[in-house]
């Protein structure tokens, strides 16, 4: 069976045999960096065309269908266009911060990638506080957005950035609480341990109703945290032209655009890891033969399949629900999601202590 783990050990052994350890480590850094950037570029291309196709099909349209077979190269053509465009910096803008902001947003997205397990034994950095690290780093991206909004010297940008700040700060809470409810069950913040604890079934099914409630809250809250519709108040087209990236053009705009999609991928990867077992194949309790058949599908396919399922769910939300108002947005968080997830956390703790889960 093909596995990425053997590939990584092969590369590492070869590097360590041929070069001194310090140089081998340097080479590994370079390989990881190149792979991460390649993943970002591929994800950007795939997710943009996926979004446009999903949107079109949901709205009974055809979607892009001119470039390549069934329009599949549309996002490549868009990328070429964005590269050719001039990256304009407005006269009144704070030039340094204005040019720095897209890179901050992008760097945050890259950093969050580190602890995610893509396949069995295939992750960049296996740290014991993986989930904490992800939730800590992902809230840094609000700084990039605030920076972009403030330095643009534009009222729409500033309003969009401020809204985005309020939104992220409040929705972080329910993301954290719903993540906690799974941590209560696994007793570990290490992403690898969390995946291994779902050997005999995914937490979504093993931990009864509290897990389902926290899954729903997680999905709603991460949709808000990534500034996606129906919570896209920070760039609400009809009110704020394009929100915090109104003044950006060319490749700097593309970086914001890409970071949005990367963030969606990352939160969906976290959701898939916590609730749907990450790269763990679909196992049912002690059905040995069934589990064995499932093991034949490579683990990275399981991971990407689950992640893309969640991404599709979030896209489905976007093209179904109308946008909320600012007060409705904060009402939803503070009056509904937060109290419910607190009660849910208590229920989950009860389940974990009493051992009611499978």
């Amino acid at each position, binding site marked *: 069976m093909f596995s990425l783990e053997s590939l990584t050990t092969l590369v590492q052994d070869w590097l360590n045999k041929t070069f001194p350890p310090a140089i081998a480590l340097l080479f590994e850094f370079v390989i990881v960096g190149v792979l991460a950037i390649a993943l970002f570029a591929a994800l950007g291309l795939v997710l943009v065309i996926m979004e446009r196709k*999903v949107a079109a*099909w*949901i*709205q*009974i*349209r*055809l979607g892009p269908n001119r470039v390549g077979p069934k329009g599949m190269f549309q996002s490549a053509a868009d990328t070429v266009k964005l590269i050719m465009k001039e990256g304009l910096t407005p006269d009144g803008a704070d030039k340094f911060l204005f040019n720095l902001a897209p890179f901050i947003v992008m760097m945050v997205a890259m950093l969050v990638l580190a602890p995610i397990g893509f396949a069995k034994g295939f992750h960049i950095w296996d740290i014991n506080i993986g989930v904490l690290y992800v939730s800590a780093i992902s809230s840094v991206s609000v700084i990039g957005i605030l920076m972009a909004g403030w330095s643009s010297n534009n009222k729409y940008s500033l309003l969009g950035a401020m809204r985005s700040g309020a939104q992220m700060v409040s929705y972080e809470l329910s993301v954290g609480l719903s993540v906690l409810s799974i941590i209560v069950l696994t007793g570990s913040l290490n992403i690898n341990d969390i995946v291994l604890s779902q050997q005999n079934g995914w937490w979504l099914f093993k931990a009864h109703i509290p897990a389902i409630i926290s899954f*729903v809250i997680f999905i709603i809250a991460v949709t808000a945290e990534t500034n996606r519709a129906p919570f896209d108040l920070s760039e609400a087209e009809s009110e704020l032209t394009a929100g915090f990236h109104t003044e950006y053009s060319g490749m700097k705009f593309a970086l914001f655009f890409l970071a949005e999609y990367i963030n969606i991928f990352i939160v969906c990867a976290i959701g898939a890891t916590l609730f749907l077992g990450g790269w763990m194949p679909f196992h049912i309790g002690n059905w040995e033969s069934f589990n064995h058949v499932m093991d034949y599908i490579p683990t990275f396919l399981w991971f990407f399949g689950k992640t893309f399922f969640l991404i599709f769910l979030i896209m*489905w*939300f976007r*093209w*179904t*629900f109308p946008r909320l108002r600012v007060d409705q947005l904060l009402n939803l968080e503070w009056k*509904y999601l937060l109290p*419910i997830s607190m009660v849910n956390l208590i229920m989950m703790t009860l389940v974990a202590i009493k051992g009611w889960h499978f």
Partner: protein
Amino acid sequence: MFIVDYLKEVYGAVKSLLVGMNRTGYYFTHHKEIITQQYPDNREELNLPERFRGEVVMAHDENNEHACTGCSACELACPNGTIKIINKFDISPEGKKKKAIDTFVYHLELCTMCGLCVEACPTNAINMANTFEHSVFNRGLLTKRLNNPDSKLKAGVE
């Protein structure tokens, strides 16, 4: 009770969201129902809806007769002066003067296809056609005369 109302509210919200997702999910999985027309490719078998508003035309029957009495209701209804009606006076066999239409001038270049003239017409003389390929090289060609030359008012239309 407060908590019951609260839970009812949450239940209602989740239910209505699921109804919405059910609808869009139905569209997503029923790809055959797509209504997009691949226009330049399917120019021959174009299937336009009946009430598509392309341009204003005046229907003439086989005797070259139309139903326009020249009442100017369409001219008054038009919001941007697209229609101009020039009347003449026919002498009837009894020697009475009778108002009739001479030229129905239609400025296609001004028309926004709102259809108010068609609604205003008391005798259903004009209606909206499905044709929409109006591009011409000379702007003068867009000023049209809708009534055919030598056409007459249909008998019985007042």
